[in-house]
């Protein structure tokens, strides 16, 4: 059978005989990598463009239509030492990128307008206390109006739209007082300029928008960047399926190009990327990613297999099924939808603050107007003072208080191996007081490891590792990895479903099932000692050995669990695995609360029970069976090795082998929430100082501008503190 790789799904036709493809590349980190990749790819004939984007870790390629196969680029990058895979921008990511560009354009317009209006305002402020002629002042005011009005109309769009959306649905968000403040400030300034008055607030209005746009842009850019990274990770998982394109001809195609009814090949050691039914072949499959159960399940004609199942011993042909009602996936998706709906009701700190803020501000302004009128001032003066109150209270620092902290904290989390999926995840994570861990793949590593390596002579281990390289079986792969074997043995023969054998120096060696190696007695003995381990036997001449293989705990799991407990967070294990396996893990980690053999519905029930008791639950899990509970929990986290669905559901995703990022994320989130609150108080404190001045009618445009920039800078500087957390340094690498 001949295998071809077909990436035509990802290739875009640019017209004029040019083709385009985007590749996600792993491990690009510096100028050297960039030059190496660009040179290496440009050297291929017919390539017209090869450009690395270091921020998003991607390569854009263009070539002349013809004989060049896109698979060639991937091979070339592999030769250069980089893992790459074609990449399709999710529509969500494209929207985020477009929004990000729009905000930057608004920010540019607002910033240039601010600079120019300021250039005109400073002479007015100094002229007001010296010898400026009223005509000159009017001229400068009119010029400011000509710059500020169109700039606000353009750069204010994000705020106007958001405020309008909120008002239409009967809500109030932070953008409502912003819009009212800006519009009133501009309107009043126009009227005042018309009447040759001394003060106009064009500068304050446009400066306010500039500062707020900085916050918006930072927020948006953080979201765009996490999405790009998440997109790369998904692409680099390189989920392909081996599809039959003829009776005996197969082709490797991306999962996105597989349709229901297609026939795919599943070889030993491969992870199934689709849902389907076995039509031919006999094997064992590992469904631990889906159910949490670590025992292998036999598969034969008619067995349903799900995306994420690992094929162990035999080759299977699978007919891809449409997600029918009542399948495991459909059931999980239904639970997921319900849970996600419930969570969308969480109200972010910023929204809660603005819900309090808007009425207070507007009431203060209205009372100021009334107060001055009652005190005998003219309506004109009273309204001008009222609007000054609105301008000075416009939530400039308030609008920056949260996004700046979020940007800094997410950057710090990113460095310690945590990616944010949801914008409000930091706030919710900081509140977590009870962590529920899934066992398989979360507390344990997804790969298998040899647990009795110390009992086996080194030369035997090395030889077994070399032989294991010739097998597709995942357990054998674990032996090969543990032995750090590099060179496979010549002439090794694999007997499907049994093992591999070879002849070395005239002695036959075998690796495989205990029966294949004549090591049944050892296997029985081991089964009594360690019932959860998978075994693989090895025979050299007449000597037999047994490798005991199982998923090991993450190296620092015990330390991290202890760290969480020290921070006053309760830790619990809910696993779909057998009782003996869960009990052993719980004991090793010092966790008192655990439950085994739980179904996805049981997990949700437990979370709901805790929720009713008022406990904020964080769920950490990787399996597809965890996805609904990830969604049901107050906040959720998944390792990067997790099933697709869980990763998409989780608020945070952590990288690497250690569990340390979980603890780091909690620390950063707590620090960040603390700083967000502190920033809100700083912003409120500034208002407490400035509002009495505004009410008493003493605020001039100069004071407004100084107060606004002063408080904004203070809040931004305070946000920078989110970069560091006290306590132990944690690393995920």
């Amino acid at each position, binding site marked *: 059978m001949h295998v071809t790789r077909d990436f035509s799904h990802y290739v875009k036709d640019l017209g004029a005989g040019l083709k385009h493809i985007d590749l996600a590349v792993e491990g690009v980190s*510096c*100028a050297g990598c*960039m030059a190496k990749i660009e040179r290496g790819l440009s050297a291929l004939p017919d390539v017209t*463009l090869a450009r*690395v984007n270091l921020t998003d870790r991607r390569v854009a390629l263009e070539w002349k239509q013809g004989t060049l196969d896109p698979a060639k680029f991937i091979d070339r990058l592999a030769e250069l030492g980089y893992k790459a895979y074609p990449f399709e921008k999710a529509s969500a990511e494209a929207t985020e990128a477009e929004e990000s560009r729009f905000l*930057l354009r608004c920010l540019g317009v607002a910033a*240039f307008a601010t600079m*120019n209006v300021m*250039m005109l305002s400073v002479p007015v402020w100094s002229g007001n206390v010296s010898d400026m002629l009223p005509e*000159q002042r009017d001229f400068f005011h009119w010029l400011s109006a000509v710059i500020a009005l169109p700039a606000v109309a353009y750069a204010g769009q994000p705020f106007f739209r958001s405020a309008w959306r909120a008002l239409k649905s009967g809500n109030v968000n932070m953008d409502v007082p912003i819009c009212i403040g800006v519009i009133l400030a501009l309107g009043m300034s126009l009227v005042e300029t018309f009447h040759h008055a001394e003060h106009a607030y064009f500068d304050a209005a446009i400066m306010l928008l500039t500062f707020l746009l900085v916050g918006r842009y930072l927020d948006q850019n953080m979201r765009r960047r996490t999405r790009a990274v998440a997109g790369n990770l998904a692409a680099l998982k390189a989920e392909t399926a081996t599809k039959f394109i003829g009776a005996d001809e197969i082709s490797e195609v991306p999962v996105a190009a597989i349709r229901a009814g297609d026939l795919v090949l599943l070889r030993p050691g491969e992870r199934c990327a689709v849902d389907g039914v076995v039509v031919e072949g006999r094997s064992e499959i590992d469904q631990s990613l889906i159910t949490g159960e670590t025992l292998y399940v036999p598969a034969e004609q008619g067995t349903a297999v799900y995306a994420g199942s690992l094929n162990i011993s035999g080759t299977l042909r699978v007919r891809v099924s449409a997600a029918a009602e009542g399948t495991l996936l459909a059931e999980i998706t239904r639970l997921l939808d319900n849970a996600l709906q419930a969570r969308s009701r969480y109200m972010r700190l910023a929204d809660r603050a603005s819900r309090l803020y808007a009425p207070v501000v507007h009431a203060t302004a209205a009372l100021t107007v009334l107060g001055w009128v009652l005190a005998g001032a003219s309506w004109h003066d009273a309204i001008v003072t009222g609007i000054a109150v609105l301008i000075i209270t416009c939530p400039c620092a308030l609008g920056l208080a949260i996004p700046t902290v979020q940007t800094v904290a997410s950057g710090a989390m990113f460095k310690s191996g945590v990616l944010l999926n949801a914008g409000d995840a930091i706030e919710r994570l900081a509140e977590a007081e009870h962590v529920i861990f899934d066992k398989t793949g979360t507390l344990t590593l997804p790969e298998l490891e040899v647990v009795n390596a110390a009992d086996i002579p080194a030369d035997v281990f090395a030889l077994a590792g070399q032989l294991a390289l010739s097998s597709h079986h995942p357990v054998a792969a674990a032996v090969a990895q543990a032995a750090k074997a590099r060179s496979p043995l010549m002439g090794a023969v694999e007997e499907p479903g049994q093992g591999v054998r070879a002849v070395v120096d005239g002695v036959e060696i075998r690796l495989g099932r205990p029966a294949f190696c004549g090591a049944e007695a050892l296997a029985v003995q081991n089964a009594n000692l360690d019932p959860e381990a998978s075994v693989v036997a090895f025979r050299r001449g007449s000597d037999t050995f047994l490798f005991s293989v199982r998923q090991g705990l993450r190296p620092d799991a015990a330390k991290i669990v202890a760290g969480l407990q020290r921070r006053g967070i309760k830790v619990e294990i809910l696993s779909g695995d057998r009782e003996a396996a869960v009990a052993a893990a719980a004991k090793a980690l010092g966790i008192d609360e655990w439950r085994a053999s739980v179904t996805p519905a049981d997990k949700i029930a437990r979370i709901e029970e805790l929720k009713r008791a008022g406990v904020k639950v964080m769920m950490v899990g990787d399996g597809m069976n965890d996805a609904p509970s990830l969604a049901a929990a107050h906040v959720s986290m998944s390792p990067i090795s997790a099933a697709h669905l869980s990763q998409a559901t989780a608020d945070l995703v952590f990288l690497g082998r250690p569990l340390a990022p979980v603890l780091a994320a909690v620390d950063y989130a707590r620090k960040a929430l603390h700083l967000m609150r502190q920033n809100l108080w700083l912003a409120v404190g500034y208002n407490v100082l400035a509002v009495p001045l505004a009410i008493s009618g003493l605020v001039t445009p100069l004071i407004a501008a100084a107060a606004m920039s002063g408080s904004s800078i203070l809040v931004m500087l305070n946000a920078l503190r989110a970069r560091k957390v006290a306590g132990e340094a944690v690393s995920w690498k």
Partner: protein
Amino acid sequence: MEVMIILVPLALALGLAGLVGFLWSLKSGQYEDLEGAAWRAIADDDEPAPAQPEAAPGRP
């Protein structure tokens, strides 16, 4: 104060030129990869650079 007749329009024109320049740089994709741009500036030129069109990062 007649000098203002020249200086004010000049200042505004310069400001406008700056804005147009910024919008152009944004449109030509110069903010798509800030990290890469930082490294490209200090990359060694001693090896012959590959033929590269002066276009924006490839977008369809």
